[in-house]
């Protein structure tokens, strides 16, 4: 089954690491993945966006998606591309700690207060992993465990101290999507 997601936000929110984690987890789970990124030269605050397409058979995808069945909106700034190309009725997972879910129209909007959830999980820097954990519970592309393994593989040795917080954030995000 083919799945497309555009992850959009600003530099510093972990957009690129989220996208790589999802694409690597998909590859390790036996799927085919394509990841295309675009980001500004700024260290913080500039546009940051990534598209991840996964499929269980031979994948043919454009590096600039004409349309996508889902979006993860980490920030309202620079989100035009992701929202303009979101298919009508597509899934929009919105980081409601920052962005206004009501601003997203014509979509199945799910609000996740990612920063609040991350703080409560003792992982204040890992809002992106909260969103990713929640996303795979809705879209079932890969398991939360596969995301965790991919994240461990991607985090460089000098950032290894963040791995446990990232894992807590993934779990906390997934728990958001489980009915109480």
């Amino acid at each position, binding site marked *: 089954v083919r799945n497309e997601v555009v992850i959009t936000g600003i530099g510093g929110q972990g957009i690129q690491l989220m996208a*790589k984690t999802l*694409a*690597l987890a*998909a*590859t*390790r789970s*036996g*799927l*085919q*993945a*394509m*990841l*295309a*990124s675009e980001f500004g*030269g700024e260290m913080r605050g500039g546009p940051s966006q990534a598209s991840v397409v996964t499929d269980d058979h031979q*994948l*043919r995808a*454009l*590096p*600039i998606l*004409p349309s996508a069945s889902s979006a993860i909106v980490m920030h309202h700034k620079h989100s035009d591309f992701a929202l303009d190309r979101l298919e009508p009725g597509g899934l929009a997972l919105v980081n409601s700690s920052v962005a206004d879910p009501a601003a997203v129209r014509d979509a199945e909007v799910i609000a996740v207060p990612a920063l609040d959830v991350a703080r409560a999980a003792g992982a204040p820097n890992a809002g992106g992993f909260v969103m990713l954990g929640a996303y795979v519970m809705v879209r079932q592309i890969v398991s939360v465990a596969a995301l965790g393994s991919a994240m461990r593989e991607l985090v460089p040795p000098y950032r290894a101290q963040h791995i446990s917080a990232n894992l807590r954030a993934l779990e906390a995000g997934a728990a958001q999507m489980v009915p109480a």
Partner: protein
Amino acid sequence: VTSAAPARELLDGCAAITESAIAAGCRFFAGYPMSPFTGLLENMSRRLPQVGGHCLNAESEIEAVNMALGAAAAGARAATGSCGQGLALMQEAIAELALNELPMVIVNMARNQQDYFQATRGGGWGDYRTITLAPKDVPEAVEHTQLLFHLADRYRAPVILYGDPFIAQTHVSVDVTARDLGPLPAKDWALDGSTGGTGHSRQIWTWAMGKVTDPGPGPDGHWRAIAAKFDDIARTEARSESYCIEGAETVVVAFGSAALFVEHVVDELRADGYPIGLFRPVTLWPFAGAELAAATRKARRVLVFELNAGQMLDDVRQFVHDRDTVRFIGGVSIHGSGLSFGPLLDVAPIRSRILEAAA
């Protein structure tokens, strides 16, 4: 990870091309950083020492290509690269490689498609051309890389991989395995030092004059032979792909990443009932002129889409039977950074340009 896990790795194009080059036996690389080529240099500098190879960060593109020339003369599978602006500096050495008959893979990780003339006509001196492969995506770039090392050795000539920012930076799940492309002649011409001091030392020289005691063919004989070799390559190495050509009233011609986008638009328009197809030159040189003529013989219009002011257009006009059917629908479109494609390389504008031209 169990043994049943797939062999595919998630790699960006620069990493995938590096792995493919190493699988092909590349053991020497030199380059000078320039976006989007820099990623390739970084990967080569990390990976080559791990397999007993060498990667040098040169002080300029001119130095890089000449370092690689030296390694190639010594018999190594050598490569260099840059983006088109850097290849402009390398043109003298590329001509020398062609006239010296030295194999070399040159990766042009281009910023857009304004390098077509440079790749297919070249800017150096002499009757030579460069075999140029333009992959449409990362998996094809992996295949082309190995094929190019083979062709470079087979013809003892410099060859070009024409990439772009999408090829360089897009990550895909790829399986890089060494391909067996058949036997190659021994490199008995290489300057390996083995005959030093014997009076029969080897010589590599664009003029091929030889020595007083052992005269060579000289420039007339040597340069005729080189021209004949490139004629031979032109006859045998052209590669192309026709997509949905059957019954197509409109045939779009596009190469590289642009062809991938056009392919998508062709699928959309075919689904809407438009009789449209795509012809993709895979080798930009040699240009598959006979195949293009055959693919467009019954077409009412031939639309050329490329991200430049009309360079491949010259080749298309040469070979399409009725030149009046050829229309240019591409154009210059550059990202604000100057380092990548602009907004024209997208499904919606390509679709509207095709529909406008076909109306």
